């Protein structure tokens, strides 16, 4: 039972991270490289879920994706399924809440790439995509990965938005933090503490992988 709980938690956090990465890179590029008009507003938007209580993000998602919500009713009409209270909703909640952490890391990393390198590539005839994939992203890799893993850890621990938009359904939307919450509420301390141990192990493992990736890339300098 613990194994499926851990797998579901990982699944939700991984999917949230995968949804976020292209968006984070795209928005960062718009904000720090293209400096599009109104990018300061975009910047605020990117960081907003970090500043808001997660329950607000969850409630917003519920209004958007719920049966009566504009997006929820559209999906229901087209696909005939509900998004809310499924693992997809849990992944979306984790994605929204963890997005700022990832995006800010990615943005800093992309901003830090020497513009002269990008300019010279362009002057040698490389198109915007080629510059992005052969110069900017490879050079910003370290910071991007740091952002990705930071976002991933946050997605692993997401609670407030998830319980609002995905509920607490064992085997479907119940992640580690929700399971711990339930055990604490029921006064099942032994179960709660066991899951707390699992939670700590997952967090430590992620941080170790993060540090290992960074040290591995440093030794090749």
């Amino acid at each position, binding site marked *: 039972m613990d194994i499926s709980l851990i797998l579901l938690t*990982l*699944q939700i956090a*991984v*999917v949230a*991270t*995968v949804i976020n*990465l292209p968006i984070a890179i795209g928005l960062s590029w718009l904000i720090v490289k293209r400096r599009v008009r109104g990018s300061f507003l975009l910047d605020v938007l990117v960081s907003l879920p970090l500043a808001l209580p997660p329950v607000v993000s969850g409630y917003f998602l*519920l209004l958007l994706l*719920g*049966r009566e919500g504009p997006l*929820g009713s559209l999906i229901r009409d087209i696909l005939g399924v*509900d998004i*809310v*209270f*499924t*693992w997809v909703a849990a992944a979306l909640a984790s994605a929204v809440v963890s997005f700022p952490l990832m995006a800010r890391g990615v943005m800093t990393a992309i901003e830090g790439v*020497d513009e*002269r*390198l990008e300019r*010279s590539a362009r002057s040698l005839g490389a198109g915007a995509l080629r510059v992005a994939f*052969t*110069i900017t*992203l*490879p*050079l910003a*890799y*370290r910071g*991007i*990965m740091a952002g*990705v893993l930071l976002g991933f850890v946050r997605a692993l621990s997401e609670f407030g938005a998830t319980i609002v938009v995905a*509920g*607490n*359904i*064992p*085997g*479907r939307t*119940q992640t580690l933090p929700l399971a711990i919450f*339930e055990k604490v*509420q*029921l*006064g099942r301390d032994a179960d709660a503490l066991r899951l707390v141990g699992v939670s700590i192990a997952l967090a430590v493992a992620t941080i170790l992988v993060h540090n290992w*990736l960074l040290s*591995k*890339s440093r030794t*090749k*300098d």
Partner: protein
Amino acid sequence: MATLSQSAQKYPTVYWQIGQFTGFGFYLMTALFCLVSACGGGDSEELLIFAATSLTNALTEIEADYEEATGVEARISYGGSQALSRQIESGAPADVFISAGAGPVTSLQDAGLVAEGSALSLLVNRLVLVARADSREPASLSDLTRSDYSRIGLADPNLAPAGAYAREALSHEGVWEAIQAKVVFGADVRVTLTYVETGNVDVALVYATDAMTAPDLSLFDIVPDGNYTPIVYPAVAVSESPELNLAKEFIEYLRSPASVATFRRNGFEPSP
């Protein structure tokens, strides 16, 4: 120019290769997870039950029996009845809902989410007086006015239904005003029970089902049933359930002699 070519040589390939590897890994894992969850769904029948937290102990036992008897996989999401009812209204795919109190079911009924003819009163809960084993035995609620009991624990009537029921019972007995100075309010019935267990109050009025979870306390069945609104636990099938027949069969199973025995063991009485 020198610095340019240096840094260009220094960074790209290594990071990029690790980047591709890690990024690719994340996407591969996603594909795998999606595949697993897509395939994992359909192989056995599943039933999703939303149930009031106070039912946890009893339903955990019944769930195991039910799964063994029918081969259907039951999943139970526990929570506050009002919160669960709201979730169902927002589209949570519950098949069965068991509520503490009639209110949350009424709001589902208003939303047209209760399957026709599926609603029934499953259980009743009762109020009892609990005290520490060493305290004096009260003969009736009016004994609470005596000086033997210096502190009386109740759930806050504004926050918890248990408190509202207790106020009703005490008012009916005519002692509500008289004990005001001695009352300590807990945020919910569980907290109130803890007050007695830790010796911070002498006695408390709690649900019989909560009292059963505290074997160290003495339990006095001195609150007359007629003194407060019956505490009914209705069970309903949700009208939008794709497993409506299975849902109704599960509710039937909750009325079977074996299930009733389990409920009784956990302090509930079957609804007459």
